[in-house]
């Protein structure tokens, strides 16, 4: 599945406030190793993404998410399921 550029852009905007100043973020950025996001910040991002896309994100998918691109891919799957 190709990454949806529009979803990626929206996710990057949601993540931006949680990113250390000056840090560049792209689809290949590791959300924990590169951005140092702890579990509380990850859950806050998840809530913001849920509101923005009007979806519920199951906790079960989080172990599959390492990079921003992985996260986008999971959102695409959920929104695709309708």
């Amino acid at each position, binding site marked *: 599945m190709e990454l949806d550029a529009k979803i990626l852009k929206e996710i990057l905007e949601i993540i931006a406030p949680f990113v250390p100043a000056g840090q560049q973020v792209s689809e290949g950025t590791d959300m924990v190793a590169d951005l140092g996001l*702890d*579990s*509380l910040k990850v*859950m806050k991002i998840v*809530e913001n993404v849920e509101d923005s896309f*009007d*979806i*519920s*994100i*199951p*906790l*079960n998918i989080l172990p599959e998410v390492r990079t921003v691109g992985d996260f986008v891919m999971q959102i695409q799957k959920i929104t695709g399921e309708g």
Partner: protein
Amino acid sequence: MTMTIFDKFQQLAAARQQLEQHASDFFNVVVEEIISGTEAIVNGRRMILAGSNNYLGLSFNADCIEAACQAAREEGTGTTGSRMANGTFSGHVALEKELAEYFNRRGTIVFSTGYIANLAMLSTLVGPGEVILLDADCHASIYDGCRLGGAEVIRFRHNDAADLEKRLGRLEQRNTNVLVVAEGLYSMLGDRAPLADIVAVKQKYGAYLMVDEAHSLGVLGENGRGLAEEAGVEEGVDFVVGTFSKSLGAIGGFCVSNHPELNLVRYASRPYVFTASSSPSIIASTRKALQILSTQSQLRQRLWDNANLLYSTLQELGLALGPEVSPIIAARFEDMQEVFAFWSGLLQRGVYVNLVLPPATPDGRCLLRCSVSAGHTPEQMETICRAFKEAIG
């Protein structure tokens, strides 16, 4: 360099070292001698315990102790077996019957701990293809039970019935079973769930509801049955889980329900089948404590008098408290050094409270989590309040 299985703990080791620099006592709290349900010798100092969950002070009740001693003498120190094998004694069956009667429910399962009760019920009731909607601030045992069962797990915002409804609405087309999970009193800030609203929403969408009354059993409701009783919505709660390790002063867990199928959960639940059952002494003291809890409402009154006193005292001191009065009274701090200094100051004045640090706290802030007991005497309450006044400076 060769990797070892311990490398992943290096981050923890560094965090621990940093914490030790601020509060050397933090990792060295040992109760050397327990004097009563509310007092102990900790690190050589006599302390009032103001952080335990001994809400009714029953851990040192003479009748409970006598019941435990007698059971140990007559039935031995342990069952040495699972409930499914040789570990169901007549006491386990009697306690299940007494809990069902107390809660006015059709059935009960008794588990070896409260943690196991949640692990067992959540991992068994709901499985692959089904959905659990849990309050974001639920206890770790609820999260772990969800993970073990393989259901889809979705959080709703803490105490937000509107957010829960939105999520139930999103699931409507899926036509699957949904179990909603909330707690009576949340263990960190002592706030209640908006249970009447949650029940209304779950009924509208045909979901099931489980409420963990671990901290509210013996604390809320006219008969002490918890938040569901206090809110007048017991009929709308499908499953109540709880623990013996707080108001009942022992250790163990339970689930009560009117669904006759509850009894089948036993046979399917790995945390029930593959662990040893509670010792006879624990069952005996719990049975006695349940009798006391259900008949001596004056204990609940004392508990609430103490809760109101400490909450109003800390509020007057300007501390940032949880949103409502309950026997769990938590002061929030932004700064780790400040909370360590405060906690140490209380220790020096002979008062032990729980110091809780992120990520175990709801919003990433540090907490001084106090809890009061019906067993705290007026003099002890005065000492606790004075210690706070002095520690704040």
